[in-house]
């Protein structure tokens, strides 16, 4: 501790050099322990207040503004009596007079000083490194410079494929720049990810249109006064209007060196965080402790606690270094890595791959102890593996299930809420601030917290990099039960965009977007022309928004819809003619039989949709098959489309002794009205002639059950993967009302559901009451019905007849035949 002469009555003066994350966290921890023991002055070279450097990436990507990432606003400094001198750099420390000297010539006395000067970005010593247009990615000034020169179509080259480089690349790409990442090592983020994980990340970035060059060594940056190109060792020349240098950081020891303190790579400190001068402490990235320098906030915040303890008098507090686990969000992808995951002879590894979810996990064991772990795409179990690693737990008996995560091993329900509940109180939730589950739950219960913001304020959990926000919200939900309502996380439509389905549909209408390229441009898609999931969705949304005006984009349709036939596993197709209400005739059956013989179609089958399926038709044969079927009046049954499929019926009052209404006739009318309509997903109807319900109407998207006094109308049923019985919508008396209610319901579903969302999940999501309200308002119902009929005017031409007469001929012909 420092000498403090008896007659002094003033408070001891603490001077902090560096208004950054570690320095101010130390001040916060000190204020919590000894609120008014020190007069505190902070000098910051940057003109701003202390902001969350980690969240510079979302600022660059336009997801956050600077104000949203401020940690301590001016009012905080005033409230806590901390004198902030921003935009003033400390250039020397007179350690004999105990004065700090600033670049504005001021000399300020200190009793104890704290160096928190962070680190400097490394500038690789190549010619052209100081040209205009070459920047680093360290502070808000860098970000503003990058934003100024980030215009669509211009070239950005990011040197460095670590966390910072990739975040910079992703941010610049959102602004439409043509981005290339140049990385020296053979795989990206080689310190946090193994080659396989690095490979996945590279593939994902390339899929989003970011070019990635690995094992690429930058030799020169060309340009007269402004950067023009980056040249690599193998001679490749990359045009560059902006060059971002993100190759790494080096502890900032300038001041310590001038002041004569002991330094190596960083400012050397002991376990009490004191430098070679016992009255000067150091914290953060500028520090070297037990030979280790840290570049992530978790260890820095641990140091800050120790320093605050020392300054508040608990001299026993010591910092022993940190075992680092990194849980990062790289361009929206969850990445977690801990320990040593390099392969070794006496090491085994367990690998898990899930292609569709884009998840890859690898756990490295050494005599049944976790030595290291790499998680890509789903990092939920990171803290658990890290706990096993730190505790050195013997995992022999849970070895088989280990890779499937804690919830699986401990038999908790697989859903997230369940796995959170299964975690012990000591389990770390927030890696950055070292906050465990117990602390968070105690704070929620003890202080009656109810929102994410309050938990952040009281426990710091999820207030730094934010990747544990989901788990903190689950803890709130688990602790508060039903009266907690989390901010609904909007799920992007697909990896090509940050926008959700509903927002895209709204913007198409509000901004008058009339083509897929227009939508992708206006909503800054991060890929040149989308992917196999967003293109079909956008094509449908545009058809629904602009009936009769939008030109269908065939190449954005799944093959079944493009070829108007279902593709089979052997590349042949199936043909399912429409059979109105399941009713057919000798003439139709003869035509079908003749076509089967003429084209030698291998399989003829009755479908679950009350019609006949011809399977094994070659693609070149389709137009000719359709022409023959058309001659008998048979048209496409759309058995391949996100469209109206079938209207199943039962015999009804025409024949059945129990029939109350003509269900067959009603089914035919419904099918005549609705066939050809493109929908968010396939739609199936049925009409039963009495409550015995032989046509299974109550598991259909729109079902009708006839009763003596009229018709019961049912919605939101499903007979497929997740069976759902319909909800009763209402009762009507006339056939016209059945048609109106059906048309209106389908139109509202068409306009408001998400692509590939059937009516069952849609009704459950928006609620039956909402649907009933929309349908009960006669005027709104009629208007929806009119909109449906209007859109049908443009979609009820038989696609088979068109193609039998040569429309889209190339689709059904090979480009060439050889030999």
């Amino acid at each position, binding site marked *: 501790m420092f000498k403090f002469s008896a007659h002094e009555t003033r408070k001891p003066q603490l001077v902090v050099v560096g208004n950054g994350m570690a320095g101010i966290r130390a001040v916060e921890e000190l204020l919590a322990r000894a609120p008014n023991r020190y007069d505190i002055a902070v000098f910051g070279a940057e003109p701003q207040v202390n902001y969350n450097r980690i969240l510079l990436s979302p600022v660059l990507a336009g997801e956050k503004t600077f104000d949203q990432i401020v940690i301590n606003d001016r009012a905080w400094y005033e409230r806590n009596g901390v004198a902030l001198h921003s935009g003033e750099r400390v250039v020397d420390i007179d350690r004999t007079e105990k004065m700090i000297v600033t670049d504005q010539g001021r000399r300020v006395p200190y009793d104890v000083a704290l160096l928190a000067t962070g680190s400097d970005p490394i500038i690789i010593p190549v010619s052209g490194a100081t040209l205009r247009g070459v920047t680093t990615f360290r502070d808000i000034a860098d970000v503003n410079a990058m934003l100024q020169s980030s215009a669509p179509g211009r070239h950005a080259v990011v040197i460095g494929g670590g966390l910072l480089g990739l975040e910079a690349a992703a941010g610049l790409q959102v602004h439409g720049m043509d981005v290339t990442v140049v990385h020296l090592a053979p795989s990206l983020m080689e310190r946090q990810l193994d080659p396989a994980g690095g490979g996945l990340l590279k593939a994902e970035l390339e899929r989003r249109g970011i070019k990635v060059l690995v094992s690429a060594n930058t030799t020169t940056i060309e340009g007269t006064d402004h950067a023009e190109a980056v040249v690599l060792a193998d001679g490749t020349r990359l045009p560059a209007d902006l060059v971002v240098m993100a190759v790494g950081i080096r502890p900032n020891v300038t001041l310590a060196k001038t002041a004569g303190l002991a330094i190596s790579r960083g400012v050397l400190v002991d376990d009490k965080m004191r430098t070679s001068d016992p009255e000067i402490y150091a914290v953060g990235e500028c520090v070297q402790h037990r030979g280790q320098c840290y570049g992530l906030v978790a260890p820095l915040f641990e140091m800050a606690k120790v320093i605050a303890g020392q300054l508040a008098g608990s001299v026993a507090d010591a910092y022993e270094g940190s075992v680092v686990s990194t849980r990062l969000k790289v361009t929206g992808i969850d990445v977690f890595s801990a320990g040593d995951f390099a392969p070794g002879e006496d090491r085994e590894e367990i690998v898990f791959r899930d292609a569709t979810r884009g998840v890859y996990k690898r756990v490295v064991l050494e005599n049944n102890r976790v030595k290291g772990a790499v998680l890509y795409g789903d990092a939920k179990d990171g803290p658990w593996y890290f706990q096993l690693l730190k505790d050195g737990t013997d995992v022999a008996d849970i070895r088989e299930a280990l890779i499937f995560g804690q919830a699986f091993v401990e038999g908790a329900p697989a859903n997230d809420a369940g796995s959170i509940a299964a975690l012990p109180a000591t389990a770390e939730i927030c890696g950055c601030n070292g906050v465990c589950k117990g602390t968070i739950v105690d704070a929620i219960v003890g202080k009656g917290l109810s929102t994410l913001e309050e938990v952040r304020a009281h426990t710091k959990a999820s207030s730094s990099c934010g990747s544990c926000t989901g788990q903190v919200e689950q803890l709130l939900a688990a602790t508060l039960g039903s009266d907690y309502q989390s901010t609904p996380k909007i799920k992007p439509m697909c990896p090509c965009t940050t926008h959700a389905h509903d927002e895209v549909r709204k913007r198409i209408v509000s901004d008058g977007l009339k083509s897929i390229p227009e939508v992708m441009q206006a909503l800054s898609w991060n890929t040149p022309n989308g992917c196999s999931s967003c293109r079909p969705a956008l094509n449908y949304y545009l058809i629904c928004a602009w009936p009769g005006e939008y030109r269908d984009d065939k190449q954005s349709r799944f093959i079944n819809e493009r070829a108007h036939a279902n593709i089979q596993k052997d*590349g042949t197709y199936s043909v399912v003619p429409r059979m109105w209400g399941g009713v057919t005739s000798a003439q139709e059956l003869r035509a079908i039989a003749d076509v089967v013989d003429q084209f030698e179609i291998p399989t003829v089958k009755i479908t679950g949709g009350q019609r006949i399926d011809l399977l094994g038709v070659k693609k070149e044969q389709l137009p000719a098959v359709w022409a023959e079927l058309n001659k008998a009046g048979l048209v496409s049954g759309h058995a391949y489309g996100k469209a109206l499929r079938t209207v199943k019926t039962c015999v009804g009052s025409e024949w059945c002794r129990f029939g109350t209404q003509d269900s067959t006739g009603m089914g035919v009318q419904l099918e005549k009205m609705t066939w050809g309509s493109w929908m968010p997903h396939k739609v199936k109807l049925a009409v039963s002639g009495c409550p015995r319900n032989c046509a299974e109407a109550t598991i259909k998207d729109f079902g009708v059950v006839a009763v003596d006094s009229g018709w019961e109308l049912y919605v939101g049923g499903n007979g497929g993967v997740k069976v759902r019985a319909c909800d009763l919508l209402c009762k009507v008396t006339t056939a016209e009302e059945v048609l109106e209610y059906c048309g209106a319901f389908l139109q509202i579903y068409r306009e408001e559901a998400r692509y590939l969302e059937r009516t069952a999940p849609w009704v459950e999501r928006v609620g039956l009451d909402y649907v009933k309200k929309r349908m009960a308002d006669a005027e709104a119902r009629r208007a929806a019905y009119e909109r449906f009929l209007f859109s049908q005017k443009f979609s009820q031409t038989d696609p088979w007849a068109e193609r039998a007469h040569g429309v889209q001929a190339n689709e059904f012909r090979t480009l*060439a035949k050889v030999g």
Partner: protein
Amino acid sequence: MDWLDVGLIDDIPQLGARVVATVVGNIAVFRTAGDAVFALEDKCPHRSGPLSQGIVHDRSVACPLHNWVIRLDTGEARAPDVGCAQTIPVRLDGRHISIDLASFIESRRDERVVYLSECRPAR
């Protein structure tokens, strides 16, 4: 190299593909939005789905059967799926597309060879 003219680029829709049928199997010829042309054997490495029928996006195609994404230039499946479709050299002279059929037929002569060939860019 034995270049065979198989047609005009205008016969293939942008972000689409068409098939060249040969005695030893079909070849899918792709056209990107930027009018680059690529050719792959029309068999997905997963379960031989016809890649020519897939949705083309940027310089990849999503197989119509189970949605593997295959790169048009190397034939490689996107991680974490593992597999590689056979690439066939293709050339554009003006509007005419020609493919090096010999290398395809040669590779198909010994079926085993095809599966052992690892992924190499066509050019």
